[in-house]
């Protein structure tokens, strides 16, 4: 059976050129960058080259890039260490209702530890309205953390206006850019972002490595205590093969960004339009134009997401859903509820996220199989009466 992987927002395959770049750093150039000898110096050079590759992708200075174990750690470090390092700025932080749990749960952890948290609502397309940030911001607001693009519905947040509002109030701005890093242009300087989290395995790099951009002059600290690595910002011996892979993936992403985005936008539009044309009672989610390239998200009424995923899987098609059964809780995804979908519609969500290896044929195959699957599940559903109801 042909495999059709359409879950690139979950993770991506490591690009072969990325993997090739990593290999020497396991068993040959295995030095510790903190060592003074030749092997240590070689590892140090690789580390700093990766830092330059990553910095170039977002218009940062390499000294502003700090490697972490991934997006989750970067989010934790940005939010926790900023709040702990700037007590005079205040104890209030602001986030949004559609953040990844790496941000949301970190904010809730701080709230439990005595900080004040405001979670902003979003509109039906998943955007934070600047007015609501203006209304929520206070003299003691130290940090605003709002994601660049949402992992479930694909909406890209227009950040600039939000950043400006935060800065006017004297607050710093962090963004979780895990879904956009390497996929759409990000210039941290022109947007004015103070901290940005990214992850390697979403852009054809290895798992277990990510980074945090911290603008020069922004006061933060380390979550881990021990050695002086990463300019004393992250104790622990660096994951050199992973970091090399991340750097290589970032360089590759930069070189093909506009071509790949154009390709994926076209393919994604075909898939989304095809689904909406062939399957009635389907609700597209997220912002229709300004979205992560190749991200398609919809809700099918009268059916449940896990059932759709397992049926698709039986045809070799791999996707994801925000239904309760796939979220590991009794509620469907907080993102789908935050954009105002009722529970019964959110349960029928499907996310198809395309990647560089997906072809027109893949899209055609999904468009052939998916209407049958939804039709069969609806025939089985007591909520569906054959199409009469809306």
């Amino acid at each position, binding site marked *: 059976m042909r495999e059709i992987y359409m879950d690139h927002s979950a993770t991506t395959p490591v690009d072969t050129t990325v993997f090739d770049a990593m290999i020497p750093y396991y068993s040959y150039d295995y030095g510790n960058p903190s060592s003074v000898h030749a092997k240590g110096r070689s590892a140090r050079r690789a580390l700093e080259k990766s830092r330059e590759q990553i910095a170039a992708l977002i218009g940062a200075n390499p000294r502003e890039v700090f490697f972490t174990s991934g997006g989750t750690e970067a989010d934790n470090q940005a939010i926790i260490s900023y709040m702990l390092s700037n007590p005079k700025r205040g104890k209030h932080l602001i986030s949004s209702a559609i953040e990844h749990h790496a941000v949301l749960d970190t904010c809730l952890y701080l709230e439990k530890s005595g900080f004040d948290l405001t979670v902003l609502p979003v509109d039906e397309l998943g955007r934070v309205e600047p007015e609501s940030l203006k209304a929520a911001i206070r003299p003691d607001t130290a940090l605003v953390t709002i994601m660049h693009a949402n992992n479930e519905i694909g909406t890209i947040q227009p950040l600039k206006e939000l950043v400006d509002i935060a800065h006017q109030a004297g607050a710093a701005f962090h963004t979780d850019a895990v879904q956009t890093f390497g996929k759409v242009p990000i210039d941290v300087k022109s947007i004015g972002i103070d901290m940005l989290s990214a992850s390697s395995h979403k852009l054809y790099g290895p798992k277990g490595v990510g980074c945090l951009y911290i603008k020069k002059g922004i006061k933060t600290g380390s979550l881990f205590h021990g050695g002086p690595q990463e300019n004393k910002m992250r104790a622990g011996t660096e994951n050199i093969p992973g970091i090399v892979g991340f750097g290589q993936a970032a360089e590759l992403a930069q070189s093909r960004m506009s071509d790949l985005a154009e390709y994926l936008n076209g393919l994604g539009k075909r898939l989304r339009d095809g689904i909406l044309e062939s399957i009635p009672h389907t609700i597209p989610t997220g912002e229709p134009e300004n979205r992560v390239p190749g991200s398609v998200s919809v809700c099918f009424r009268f059916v449940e997401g896990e059932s759709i995923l397992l049926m698709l899987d039986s045809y070799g098609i791999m996707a994801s859903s925000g239904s*309760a059964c796939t979220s590991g809780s009794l509620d469907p995804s907080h993102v789908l509820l935050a954009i105002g979908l009722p529970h019964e519609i959110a349960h029928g969500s499907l996310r198809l996220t395309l990647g560089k290896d997906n072809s027109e044929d893949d899209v055609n195959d999904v468009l052939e199989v998916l209407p049958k699957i939804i039709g069969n599940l609806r025939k089985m559903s007591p909520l569906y009466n054959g199409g009469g109801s809306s």
Partner: protein
Amino acid sequence: MYSQKVMDHFMNPRNVGDLDIADGVGEVGNPVCGDIMHIEIQVQDNIIQDIKFKTFGCAAAIATSSMVTEMVKGKTLEEAERITNRTVADALDGLPPIKMHCSNLAADALHQAIKDYIARRNQA
């Protein structure tokens, strides 16, 4: 995650649909929690002659519905009443722990259908 039996009943569900004439109807769950199981039975001489189901829900919800219809078809009402959500799950070689509560309600739907049948019979 799921046993082969669950996947078999999910991919090839038995007794899906509606009965032309239902003697008893049972429905449990609600769309908010993401599972609704609807069961219809046809009873003759105290025996479940025919049974159909419709389910909105995950693979576990569909598989348990399918399994319960297979387990009670041709059985007496007393035998059917003794079937529990637990025995349905066991007949499917178990369910993941998280599914035991939310998606394992098929026996409840069946019991409601039997209750409905008895109530209608007593009224007649």
